[in-house]
């Protein structure tokens, strides 16, 4: 958890630089803000669940492999909720990506 704390501290200067660059004037779209906050909250919640999986006695390589497949969940959700379409070669690319994620997460 200490590393996660430091990680956020490290990201702060970037956010502050962006705020200064935009002269502290951010777009006031409530939807944009809500979705942006959801990105932060879900990323952090996912990290906690990740550490939770390690601490509940799972095999590290299995956990990393399973969780490493999260981009595939995004793809399925994007097709279902955002109605995005993929070309045949992109679908093939996703297959290669899935194999790469599994190999990399095996360490």
């Amino acid at each position, binding site marked *: 958890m200490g590393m996660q704390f430091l990680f956020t501290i490290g990201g702060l200067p970037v956010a502050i630089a962006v705020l200064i660059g935009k002269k502290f004037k951010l777009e006031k779209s409530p939807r944009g803000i809500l979705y942006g906050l959801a990105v932060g909250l879900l*990323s952090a919640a996912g990290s*906690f669940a990740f550490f939770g999986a*390690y601490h509940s006695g799972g095999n590290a390589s299995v956990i990393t492999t399973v969780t490493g497949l999260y981009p595939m969940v995004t793809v399925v959700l994007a097709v279902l909720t955002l109605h*995005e379409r993929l070309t045949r070669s992109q679908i093939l690319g996703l297959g290669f990506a899935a194999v790469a994620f599994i190999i990399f997460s095996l360490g």
Partner: protein
Amino acid sequence: MHVAPWFWFAVAVLIAWGAVGIFQKLSTNYISAESTLVWLMAGFLLFEPFIYPGKALFHYSRHSVVYGVLSGLLSTLGAWGLFAAMRYGGKASIVTPFSALYPLIVVVLSPFVLHESVTLLQGVGVLCALIAVYLLST
């Protein structure tokens, strides 16, 4: 049927991180990549009080502090690029898997920086990742 507790945590990770890609795309549909980055950090900061390590923080080695902060800095810069990719028309179903191929860089750099050796299996992984990058960008 008994399911191990770690499995449910892993499923929670998949759902949370999988949904993140969708919310990134939705957010950049309404606001700029820069604004999304600011709100992402706001979301992160809400958790900070709960994960504050207390006095232990002052006993971390200088190296762990520097590397911890640096990884946050670089990841946030990377997130900025990711949001910009989505803002300028990138699909969540392409940008998210594409950006998740970052271990490719780790595998390529680690022999030089950390003096780790690359196994044959990892070599196959690098090849698959390169093919994936090419196909996803077509």
